[in-house]
């Protein structure tokens, strides 16, 4: 049964990194399309556009973070291998779900908001502050998912 526990933990890690990363990729892609459009008119906005495009990228990092935490916990990254029961492994798997789900969907939503914000700075570059805050509103929920995953992982005693 030990092996099943480890495998479940790996499944969790894979879901966290995979889904959150996929969401970020889609989100950054959406924002990038919009940014490329704006830059055909005004290449000088590259800096601002890049900043806004980068915003939906954080979910991927959060997912990676949880994935590392999960495999660290079961001792896959050097150190002594730890005995993990199937239930503990299942627990780790569940603990990875918040950032996998929250990360995936919030990154896409944030990408759309970023794209809209990019359109906004195309017309009103002086309103950059507001344009950056709108996508950050979406990211809140990715941060909350990250937090819950961290707390859950931290709570599972091996």
């Amino acid at each position: 049964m030990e092996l099943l526990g480890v495998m479940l933990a790996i499944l969790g890690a894979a879901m966290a990194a995979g889904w959150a990363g996929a969401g970020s990729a889609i989100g950054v892609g959406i924002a990038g399309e919009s940014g490329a459009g704006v830059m055909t008119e005004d290449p000088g906005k590259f800096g601002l556009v890049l900043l806004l495009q980068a915003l939906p990228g954080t979910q991927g990092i959060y997912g990676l973070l949880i994935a590392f935490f999960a495999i660290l916990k079961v001792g896959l990254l050097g150190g002594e291998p730890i005995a993990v029961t199937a239930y503990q492994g299942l627990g780790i798997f569940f603990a990875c779900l918040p950032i996998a789900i929250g990360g995936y969907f919030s990154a896409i939503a944030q990408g759309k908001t970023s794209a809209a914000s990019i359109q906004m700075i195309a017309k009103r570059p002086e309103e950059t502050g507001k344009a950056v805050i709108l996508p950050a509103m979406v990211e809140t929920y990715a941060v909350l998912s990250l937090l819950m995953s961290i707390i859950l992982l931290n709570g599972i005693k091996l």
Partner: protein
Amino acid sequence: MAVEGIKKAELYVHKSNLEEVLGALQRTASFEVAASGADQSIEGVVQAHPELPRVEGLLAEARFLLRFLEPHFQDKVSPVARALGEKEEISLEEGEALEKSLDIAAISDGARSLERRLVEIRSELAQIATTEALLSHLPDFSYPFELITSGTERVRGIIGTMPASKMPSWRRDMETVLSGMGEIYASTPGEKEQEGWVAVFYDESISDRVMECMTAHSFSKVDVPSALKGTTEEEAKILSERKTFLAGEEERILREIADLAEKRVLAIRTLSDYWTVLRDRYQALLSGTSTEQVVVLRGWIPESGVKRLTKALSPFGTSVELFLFNPSPDDSPPSLLVNAPWSLPFENLTKLYGAPKYGEIDPTPLLAPFFFVFFGMCLGDAGYGVITVGLFMWFMRKYGRMPSAFKGFFQLFVLSGISTIIVGALTGSWFGDLVDAFSFLSFLRPAKNAMLILNPMENPMDFLAISLALGVVQLFCGLLIAFYDALRKRNYMGAFADTGGWIVLLVGLLLWGGVASGFLSDGVALTAKILSFAGAGVLVATQGREKEGIFGKAVSGLLSLYGVTSYLGDVLSYSRLLALGLATSAVGVIINMLAGLAGDLPYIGWAIALLLIVGGHVFSLAVNVLGAFVHSLRLQYVEFFSKFYSGGGTLFSPLTYKTAFVSIKNDSVE
């Protein structure tokens, strides 16, 4: 703190002194011209300054020249450096002298003729390229093109393309039609080519039948440029000679433009700024009204600027009269933010959200300490803090004369970096766990551990509690400010019912929660309950006061209690302080771990490890600084400002020198 008082001003200037007075206004930068039309109490007409059209014309010429010459100009000062304040200083007198010394019209005439010549050359080159493309289809065409372009007395010729598959049948039919009265040219299309080129030369008398035959075989005629006379070979030679000549000509003109740019761009830039200053000055008049002898300008003057302006206007004696009024409630004066040096760097954050309305609270000093702490917690790594501080200090040293808006942002990042160092040291995060991960750095461990008081990686719940507690503190601050603001405006219902009710209810609930979870003794329980019910009672009683009927009032009052969830949401939102701080350290730990793993590889392991450490931490720093900035800012804008601040004002923007390339010396005043 707060927004400075602004006076409404009416300035009466006798026309004889108009120019000098406007100059003085611009120099002191303490008079904002209000848009016209707001007040029509004074009879008169809007009159443009006679110089305005001339200056605008010159400015248009300068813009044309800069647009034309700048791409050919090697600038010694990079645009970034110039934006950061590396500008030459000139005085307006120098600008005037420069204007006299330079015949801008002649320069731009010269530039225009160069531009025209360049366009001509380029369009001819494009034409040649088209002709060459045509000739490339007909390498073995040995008839003179003259036969096609003009023909002879009796002979006509046409050339064009037709589908390759039709060419054999066309040749047969055409030979019959011509029956010796003409000649045929047909290219040999390659296997993959769909079309072939054909030409026919025929006696004028049979032209109808020739055309009929051509049309029957899907021929499409190609018009040959009329300049073509000889055979392909001859023409190709002529074209290539012409091309060489034109290329040389183009190079010569480009060199000429580069020379012109080298010689003139700096002067034109200076002049462009000088004329912009003059234009702004004259445009101010468009907002004034004038009578036969006097011009009246209306605008705003901050209280601190009044003395400076009166002093600057004193030399004009009685030909100038300045009247000051207090703004009436109907006016919407601009806001001028005045902040102490410690909170000045944070002013940009307020401006990003939107300036306060005149007479409202300036939130800058109120958000400054919170932003400082929050940024530190979100970034939370002393190593990253050191780099941030170092980088921005270096920039500030290098560009000492940067404009105040930039300076504010740089100072903001230096302060934020300092806060990050403090938080990082207290939580024991130096580039993640770099000190613990690599044994050769073990000598630093005691120093690191001496400063460590809480490791969020091991005790995330404690750090979460701190984050939420800070959230509670900030929210209460926000409510207290709203309370004070309502009192200040004598809105007692707003102060005691709206804000006061919530403060009492929330304090009660917090105490109640404290008792329930065992942190507070049971003795507090009664106080907690009383406060909660009193607060809730006030809210239920007052929040429906705008509704009709007792039932509507009661329902609205009760429903208002639902707002407690938004306060709960606000507090929980501060959990991002833990999450982001933890994320920074954790990403750092992962980078170090990967580097450690790579370091075990034979031979090149150390190089990969070094690359991972440097590259990884630079990446992590960039991502996390962005995240820390955005999220600390969001906590101010969304959670904090929503309690008491709405922005919506306009910033005071006086008539002053707005320049792009040089800065104007201000030596004649103060």
